[in-house]
């Protein structure tokens, strides 16, 4: 649809970039780094798959501070990279600035919306996936008390928590959801010790299913759950295999697919600007069922969740998105 897709080659010439005879796609990872066992790593897996399949190399950069985002994106654009994928909502403002500077370069931002003709925004309906795992948690819980452990207390994580809570309440209106955030610095995304500690304290308060949306911190939560023989729910990628037997499920968010598609469509010319909202209907989010957790999800539980999934897709059940009004209904 976009007329822009033939332009990158011209652009590269106009910028006199010696490096980019053939436009190379590029990705700018955020502060967590590409091996964060979570969000950035999902993107990494997606772009690696692209490289393996197509043999096209890509440029990459991991930022270490706020200012480098814009710097890195701009440098990528100057070198003629195209398309350029920015990972994480924090890169939104930088994409906006650089996108304006390089109107002929295609940008894809994951997890945020930037309204420019040369930017593709990919966002996920994490609340929908979280809703389903919330239902599973409530169905599996014997105590009627379930837990949520977030990384940093930012709107995105509240979105997870809010969807989860709605799912829990959908099954059992009397259920209690105990929420904790790991910390207030980016270190909270990678603090398994603290995660385990928070999980244990939640178990002491009667929690028997805990959902961690906290990046690498989750590893500690899952371990603590396995040790205490409680159930845990993974996030972002399918983490069921981490603790077989105590991982109830994982809320999968297919950032790898988003990244892969961005590169792939960039290469074959099907890239489109605009907003892509990936929810249950689009397969962008979901819950994982595999050989590791089959035993934990009996058929009627599965049926109930699948019914709800169908209802959400059909619009019969509305899951509230925290980010719409920065508020979560009780």
């Amino acid at each position: 649809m976009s007329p822009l897709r033939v332009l990158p080659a011209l652009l590269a010439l106009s910028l006199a970039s010696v490096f980019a005879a053939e436009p190379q796609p590029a990705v700018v990872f955020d502060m967590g780094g590409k091996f964060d066992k979570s969000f950035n790593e999902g993107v990494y897996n997606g772009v690696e798959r692209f490289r393996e399949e197509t043999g096209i190399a890509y440029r990459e950069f991991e930022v270490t501070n706020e200012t480098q985002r814009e710097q890195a994106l701009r440098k990528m654009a100057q070198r003629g990279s195209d398309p350029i994928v920015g990972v994480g909502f924090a890169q939104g403002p930088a994409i906006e600035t650089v996108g304006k500077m390089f109107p002929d370069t295609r940008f894809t931002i994951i997890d945020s919306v930037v309204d420019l003709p040369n930017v593709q925004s990919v966002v996920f309906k994490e609340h929908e996936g979280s809703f389903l795992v919330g239902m599973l948690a409530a169905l599996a819980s014997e105590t009627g008390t379930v837990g949520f452990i977030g990384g940093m207390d930012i709107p995105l994580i509240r979105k997870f928590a809010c969807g989860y809570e709605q799912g829990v309440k959908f099954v059992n209106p009397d259920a209690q959801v105990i929420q904790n955030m790991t910390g207030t610095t980016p270190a909270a995304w990678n603090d398994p010790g603290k995660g385990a500690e928070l999980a244990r304290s939640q178990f002491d308060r009667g929690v028997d299913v805990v959902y961690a949306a906290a990046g690498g911190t989750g590893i500690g939560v899952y371990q603590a759950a396995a040790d205490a023989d409680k159930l845990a729910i993974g996030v972002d990628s399918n983490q069921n295999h981490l603790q077989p037997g105590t991982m109830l499920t994982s809320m999968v968010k297919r950032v790898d697919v988003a990244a892969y598609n961005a590169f792939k469509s960039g290469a074959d010319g099907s890239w489109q600007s605009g907003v892509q909202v990936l929810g249950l209907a689009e397969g962008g989010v979901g819950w994982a069922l595999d050989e590791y957790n089959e035993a934990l999800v009996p058929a009627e539980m599965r049926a109930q969740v699948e019914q709800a999934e169908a209802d959400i897709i059909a619009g019969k059940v509305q899951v509230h998105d925290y980010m719409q009004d920065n508020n979560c209904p009780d």
Partner: protein
Amino acid sequence: MSRAAGVLPFWVDVLLIPLLNIGLAFLVSGLVIVTIGENPLEAVRLMVYGAFGYEEAIGYTLYYATNFIFTGLAVAVAFHAGLFNIGGEGQAYIGGLGLGLVCLATDQTLPFALIVPLMVLSSALFGLLWALVPGYLQAYRGSHVVITTIMFNFIASALMVYLMVNVLIEPGSMSPESRSFAESAWIPSLHGVLAMAGTHITPSPANVSLLWALVCCVFVWLFIWHSRWGYAVRTVGSNESAARYAGINTRRVVVFTMCVSGALAGFVALNEIGGVHHRLLLNFTAGYGFTGIAVSLMGRNHPLGIVLASLLFGALYQGGAELAFEVPTITRDLVVVIQGLVILFSGALAYMLRPLFERIWLQLSQPAAVTTDA
């Protein structure tokens, strides 16, 4: 018994040895780079080019250096009073809060000429307040300032997360950031100022805060070495009993020094929030407060040394990013290793080469020695 401190000539002590230390650090870094299969000379070339090779690179180097001057001065001032202010990070963070609040409140109404002084004042004031509490606790309650400033870093980041997520977030925004300030509340960028003067350079984040940082250097120099307050600060720092003997109120000096230190750290916000991001956001301090400790250490707690050390660290940051950008196998973690080695050799091992040089110098100067009757 003390070895005469002035054995070596000034230039050996202040120039040659630090340069050799940095050289050693690069040598060891080179070995690391060789082991991962890259060309170390090429890496150094990329790093130097990335830091100083073109206008934008210089701009970024200066922009980082601006942060380091502020935090380095903050650490140095506290150090002269014998205080180890590890809280530059938190003070800068809260300084940013103060500046952000002022900008959000006034950018629609007040003119540039009024907002900028308010920005300077508010960032200093908030940074000061954040250092005042640990200073007070140290002076009057005996809680060690190292512990409390570290704690205050955490409190600062908790407070900022709370405020950004719940109060100051731009409605409808994905990320916890405030709205952007109006341009009347922007610290002018260097390229903008030069453009007005008719010189055009590549845009970069370097902004007028750099000049303010240099003004602060002069201020700190005058304050520490040429004012009675600085005299009191240094007395307390070098010999607290002597300070009590001299009738100096050591507690007041401790609190006062922490306030000056915190205000200087707060100025980081001028550069980051006022000069670059133009909106309040999380984690803009990115460890500059901690790097300030190394900068101050390397700069021997003297403004001039701090400026030089800041330039070095600015170059390491910017050149390091460039290196990671250009050579995919050199990750940002390896860049941190190189930065760490520089800190190790010029900070922790700063005196490693000294005895050797003293010996060489004595050998060389043997015939020229003067007999003094003690």
